């Protein structure tokens, strides 16, 4: 089947199998920044923002996302013009292997959009669906704190 999506602000038209997940379709169409960690909705590595809402893209049928707005980490900023969350993750040492990072940054963005000045507890709750096995989360939480300070300063 065919479907049109708005991915990182750009309208695209993709064809895919009816049972394909949003993760499959994104990865097949030039978005390898969306990572497959478990394919069962438990690790969070495939998180994207779907119409602004954080979802595990491995648990969403692509067909159900037609005409919706999909944001991946590549749509937040680039290596030449990174988003403050991306630089905060870099500066705090919140990235080791980086496999969870794109999803972790999107989960953080979803949090900061709804709650620009989160407490540590808010941050922990918001990131609970995203596993990281490398960092022990300490510097990830610090990164979100730093980004929150910087982003509110710009508002």
């Amino acid at each position, binding site marked *: 089947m065919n479907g049109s999506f708005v991915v990182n602000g750009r309208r695209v038209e993709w064809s895919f199998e009816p049972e394909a997940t949003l993760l499959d379709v994104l990865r097949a169409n030039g978005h390898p920044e969306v990572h497959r960690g478990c394919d069962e909705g*438990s690790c969070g590595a495939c998180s994207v923002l779907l119409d602004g809402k954080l979802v595990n893209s491995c648990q969403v049928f692509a067909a159900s996302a037609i005409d919706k707005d999909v944001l991946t980490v590549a749509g937040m900023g680039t290596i030449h013009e990174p988003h403050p969350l991306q630089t905060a*993750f870099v500066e705090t040492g919140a990235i080791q292997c980086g496999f969870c990072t*794109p999803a972790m940054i999107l989960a953080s963005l979803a949090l900061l959009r709804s709650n620009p000045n989160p407490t540590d507890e808010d941050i922990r709750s918001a990131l609970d669906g995203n596993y990281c096995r490398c960092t022990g989360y300490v510097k990830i939480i610090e990164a979100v704190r730093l980004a929150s300070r910087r982003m509110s300063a710009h508002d």
Partner: protein
Amino acid sequence: MTELTIVGKSVEKVDSLSLACGNARYASDCELRDPLFLTFALSTVPHGDILSIDDFAARAVDGVVDVFHAFNTESPLFSTAGQGFPEPSPYDTRLFNRRVRYVGEIVAAVLAESLEGARAGAKAMKLEYSTLPALFDPERSMDSDSPKLHDGEDAYAPLPVAYRPEENVAGEVLFSYGDIEKGFSEADFVVDETFRTHQASHCALEPHNASAYFDEKGRLVLVVSTQVPFHSRRIVAKATGIPAHMIRVIKPRIGGGFGGKQEVLVELYAALAAWKHKRSVRAEMTRPEVFTSARTRHPMRVRIKTGVKKDGTMTAMDMNDVMNSGAYGAHALTVLSNAASKVLPLFNKIENMNFTGRTVYTNLPVGGAYRGYGATQGYFPFNQHIDGISRTLGVDFLDFVKKHHIRVGETSAVFEAIGEGTEGVSQIVRSCKLDECIDIGTREINWHGLRGKRITDGPLVKGIGASVAMQGSGIPQVDMASASMKMNDDGSFNLMVGATDIGTGSDTILSQIAAEALNVPLEMIIVLSSDTDLTPFDVGAYASSTTYVSGRAVLTCAEKIRDQILSVASAMTGTPLEQLSLAESRVVNRATGEETSFSQVACFALYSKDQFQIQASASFTGVESPPPFMAQFADVDVDTETGKVRVVKFVSVGDCGQAVNPKLAEGQIEGAAVNGISFALAEQYLFNKNGGMTNNSFWDYKIYGTLDLPEMVTVVVESDEPTGPYGAKSVSEIGINGPAPAIANAIYDAIGVRIYDLPLTPEKVLKAIRSRA
């Protein structure tokens, strides 16, 4: 020593912005033209001979191209353990074994035009087995009447090490010194305890995977999620028969390893299928397959018996380990060795010592390398045992440790006695700040305010516990690393290393070492790791070796480059060498103050006279393995009504030598500590009566998330290791050793019951509380 300018600074990890922006590519992101997909069929019986394989239905599935299995694919015996050659692990497996030995063993690989087709094909495979009695209890595996897994001629050890498949013994480590009986007879009391550590999964977020394709000359390129690209090429060649020179292994970014990817697994089958069909192949384990069919932490039973005098002298220690290797012997000998060699030297004043260790086969998932590598299994009993002894003596645990631990200038007979498949290497400790680590941790956890106070809050009782550990820095006289560098005309340098950054930050710290030696800003070092065609050899990311071993190779290489720069500058300007020294990106004539930029030097060498490129390579093998040290502390609340243990605060204080990048060093400790806490409290393998894992998903195998975290405090204490690059040792593994014993010691502190078996589940704690009452 001159002031360090880049080493010792928490510069940003060189690959982190690309990872944050989604630019970085992992093995499964490799673009393949018209790939085939490969999936696995797994054994459903724990032990049995395959009588027949019916792949007719599988081949009939739409899109299925081929099916590989024991009846159509020959391979020699080999080991999947990604170790040096010859491997200290037994050669006891083939690509497909005619006898299967655990539920989850790969019995077929199905190749299809689509992933769905390959999965449907795998599901359609029909195998008939003649089942054999299964062995699940490692402590009974050496019994004469137990089923034997590898008896007969179908397995051997390539090194001259003890290997007795007829007894299910996959590895054996024995040593003693002094007179153990005399030691025990001199003791005022003897403590004899038995502990058990459990199986665990690495849970790297990126599943094991490989992508295979052919280059324009018909060579096979394998893009692999691996910690050991050079071992991977060697072992793929051995197992599949593809000539090694026709294989190129590329390591892109890796989504975590922790030892799990020190194993050559998925790429074997991707290579086999791609080579036969001359097509690109994508192969990836599912998460359940990673749990059951990749590798795990070896469970271990440790009996530890110590003779003690009333004055605190330990007169004898006898340690007896039985390690469960599961169905195959990957790392069977060496993880066991490390349970002794990384643990016993810490208390080097015990004059009479005996160690008896055996690794045994069972019909369960296979053990392998896992961060800590046996030390984790050894320190859980060791620290609890010492906590108990110090309590019996009425001495503070930390004071007791300080009195007994190894110090600068001292050695241990264990270093020389136990190596990895060979004898060990004698060494003296040249840097150790364990006392400082203990003192800092004591303050951070409020040891004196909380230890033994049993502060209660309703059903909650607080306890404080600690543990100490050491590790190593590479395998001495075994691990080798190489680096090469070349200078570009703008004064930048390409640094090529076989050292394998799997998320640890080794690209960054090796660049820092090169930049420091050459006195250039970090961005003038362009690092590439690791590619068997382009980068020199390195054993890979394991044994806490990269900073120390690969770091020394990079340092030596950079020093050679520095000498060449000075000599070109001397010829170029007609200045005697002795008069020249390096300043940032330039050579300075100390007599005249005249400066020549690195760019001018490089251009002169490349274009002007007696042309050559400034370039060098270097290799390094450690003759010693300087241990990092760590003290870890847990503040726990034990719920006496439910048995639930909550870690409130966790403190890690480590001596890793000079931290090349303190923030990355901290990150290594934090990650290891949280993995260790999760291992101690939350993670466990559950099996059905066939030895099949029943909780092979993240839904049922719990690992720590953000809501589970205690307050974490991590302190890096710097020491100067004279043999290390700029004083560095290692840091990546050690932090996982201490959480389980520190928490167990804290539970004892809270409720006066000792939990001897991991994991420390509410059921066990509650049972222990009730049996005490």
